[in-house]
């Protein structure tokens, strides 16, 4: 794997972050994430896995240190530029983050409608293809509210992959899923990783034992306010 490392897609230098409640989450963290890698970030609840994802995405700002996405220091970017970089990242959140007032297919169409100039027919065609690709077999015109957690996550997968991003981030993907569903989710992670050459896949999990089924290049552990390899 090491020889295939070409680009550092995410780079953290001297990261220092204090949460709103005054607790220091990260102190002097340095880390790099490379194209083509499959990385898991582990650690018990409350140590900063989701916070790290939020920092990657520029949703929270560190008190000290820099985070570079695709070589750009996100702390120096204006909002439109940051939004531009975010298009290169597909995110599946713990509770899916599916927009409840949009129908299933509209959720998948949203990033394409917002960020691309594709025709409406092409957008619809791609959204239907992606839903099929992730194994969604329900009504594409249903509102997602009553759907089970696993199904919502598959829709979130389809939405996250819609812009063919260079980085896929899965935050606490396996939370609330049974063993069979977890296995299917990890299958999707694997499938998506292989679909695009040099895609970086990052997933956060509580316990390393949950991801035995998937091949990983690195497992990082958040411990004592640092990221350990």
């Amino acid at each position, binding site marked *: 794997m090491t020889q295939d490392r070409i680009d550092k897609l995410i780079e953290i230098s001297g990261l220092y972050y204090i949460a709103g409640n005054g607790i220091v989450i990260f102190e002097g963290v340095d880390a790099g994430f490379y194209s083509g890698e499959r990385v898991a970030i582990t650690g018990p609840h409350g140590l900063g896995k989701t916070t790290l994802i939020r920092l990657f995405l520029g*949703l929270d700002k560190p008190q000290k240190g820099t985070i570079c996405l695709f070589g750009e220091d996100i702390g120096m970017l204006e909002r439109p530029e940051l939004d531009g970089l975010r298009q290169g990242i597909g995110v599946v959140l713990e509770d*899916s983050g599916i927009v409840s007032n949009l129908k299933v297919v509209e959720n998948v169409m949203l990033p394409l409608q917002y960020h691309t100039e594709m025709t409406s027919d092409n957008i619809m065609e791609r959204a239907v293809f992606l839903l099929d690709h992730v194994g969604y077999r329900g009504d594409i015109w249903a509102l997602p509210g009553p759907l089970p957690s696993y199904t919502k996550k598959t829709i979130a997968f389809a939405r996250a992959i819609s812009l063919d991003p260079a980085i896929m981030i899965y935050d606490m993907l396996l939370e609330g899923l049974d063993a069979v569903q977890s296995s299917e989710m990890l299958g999707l992670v694997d499938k998506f990783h292989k679909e695009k050459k040099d895609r970086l896949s990052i997933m956060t999990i509580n316990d390393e034992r949950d991801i035995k089924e998937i091949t990983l290049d690195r497992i990082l552990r958040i411990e004592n306010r640092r990221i350990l390899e």
Partner: protein
Amino acid sequence: MYIFDIIGRTVLSFLNDLYEMGYLAISSIETFLFHLIRGRRAISGVIYKQIYFTGIEALPIISRIAISLGIIIVTQAMNILPLFGGERLIGEILVWVVIRELGPILAAIIVIARSGAAMASELGSMQVNNEITALEAMGIEPRRYLVMPRVIGAATSVFVLTLYFEVITILGGYLLAGFGKRITFGAYVSNVLGTMGFMDIIASLFKSAIFGLIIGAVSTLHGLRVGKSITEIPQQTTKAVISSIFLVFVLDGIITAIFFI
């Protein structure tokens, strides 16, 4: 000293709210007029939906209230005015009461009750369910995609609903309460139109547009203030409704003073 502390905090909080609402309303207009290129297809869809929910779906209740108000005003006017030979004052009464004041205010209150509360609770629920975080992660700015379409949709809806409300109140009032009385329909309409000045129409429409902007800005602001707890949704929804009603009345007073004093 404690009481001064409370008063000071309340005043500062109110001024901060006013600033944020004003900022949301003005930035929404600016984005709509000058920066709608990025994400326009997705945003246009949200604007159309907002106009449908806030404007078109409000037509039945607006019609019922407008007709009821028209019956009340026309009945009272037609019973009282002839007692002192003032039938011709019906036009003045309708213009002063309906067009200058009640049209914009009642349309705004109906929109606050139906859509202001809905907007605040919808955005609050999206906040709790991490939907807004997901949008941001996708590079979709909530102010462009969620706030601006609701503010513009609410302003457009209140503007059009006010016009509709005024027409239905005046025409419906005569047809149901004034028909067959001493004044003919033609005389009634020409009386109203003859009394209505340019400033009456401008003031009415200006008020309605401002009320709509404020309702949209206040409701979305309170919706986005919901944190991670579901119990905050009803609290912020109530605040959105109360603040909207309060601001509509305050602004009504200010605009009336500017136009007619």
